[in-house]
């Protein structure tokens, strides 16, 4: 693996990542993950259960947040643990732009060759993940 940002220590910031999620991405993720819940592709069903519209799979948002970490670490196999709380939905409009998810992260601890990273995921100006923490083995 390759950590590109020099020495890793408490306070080290990961290069931020801005990702767009479209309806097509949701359909692709539904197929790849096997999560066919219609709230992730049908406005009729999503609004019927009280949502503002079709929302991204929580696990897709988690996976996108994981990319912030794997991109920084250089190798996805360096990730030892990853946990999140789903606090707000990412509403994905039926257009070409989709929803913008803004990801940032900071090292909060380094011990025994493992960096602990606190991740922030924002959509529409608000955080969508709580307690998003990954542990990554340093090379």
């Amino acid at each position, binding site marked *: 693996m390759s950590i590109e940002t020099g020495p890793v220590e408490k306070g080290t910031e990961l290069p931020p990542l801005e990702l767009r999620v479209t309806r097509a991405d949701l359909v692709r993720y539904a*197929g790849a993950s*096997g999560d066919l819940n219609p709230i992730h592709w049908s406005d009729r069903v999503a609004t019927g259960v009280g949502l503002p519209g079709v929302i991204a799979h929580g*696990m897709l948002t988690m*996976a996108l947040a994981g990319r912030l970490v794997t991109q920084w670490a250089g190798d*996805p*196999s360096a990730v030892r*643990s990853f*946990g999140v709380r789903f606090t707000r939905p990412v509403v994905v409009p039926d257009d070409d732009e989709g929803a913008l998810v803004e990801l940032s992260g900071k090292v909060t601890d380094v011990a025994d060759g493992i960096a602990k990273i606190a991740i922030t995921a924002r959509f529409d100006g608000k955080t969508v993940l709580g307690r998003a923490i990954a542990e990554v083995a340093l090379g």
Partner: protein
Amino acid sequence: MPDASYVGTALAPSAPYLVGREKIKEFALAIGEGASVCTDLEAARAAGHPDLVAPPTFSVTFTMPLIEGFLRDPAFGWDYSRMVHGDQSIVLHRPIHGGDELVTTIHVEDLSNRAGSHMLTLRCEVTDIDGAPVATTKSLLVTGS
């Protein structure tokens, strides 16, 4: 009403799930994971891996269908149609690779009622077919009562 007598019990271990190389590629593409060790066998082997490396959240592809099967079983009494995912954690005891044969055992850890919602914590212990630990995942699932 979910049956609280399940708390503290484990379901029967799953049949082995064969991690497909093409499934890893498909999943990596779906989440936009660009690391070559997830999509290029030569690159994965050059980096010392036996096969393609699964992205960190890949385990949902085989644990979630098992969880869904349990929650849709009327015996447990869970309202699957109203369920939301509260939180999720994944601990990887080692990376998951293409060709792995993995067995998942669901443990019903906790069931509580808060403000009219049922909150269920399920833990999945994922091992190889020899029983060596591969991953431990925890899901908090919430549904109306």
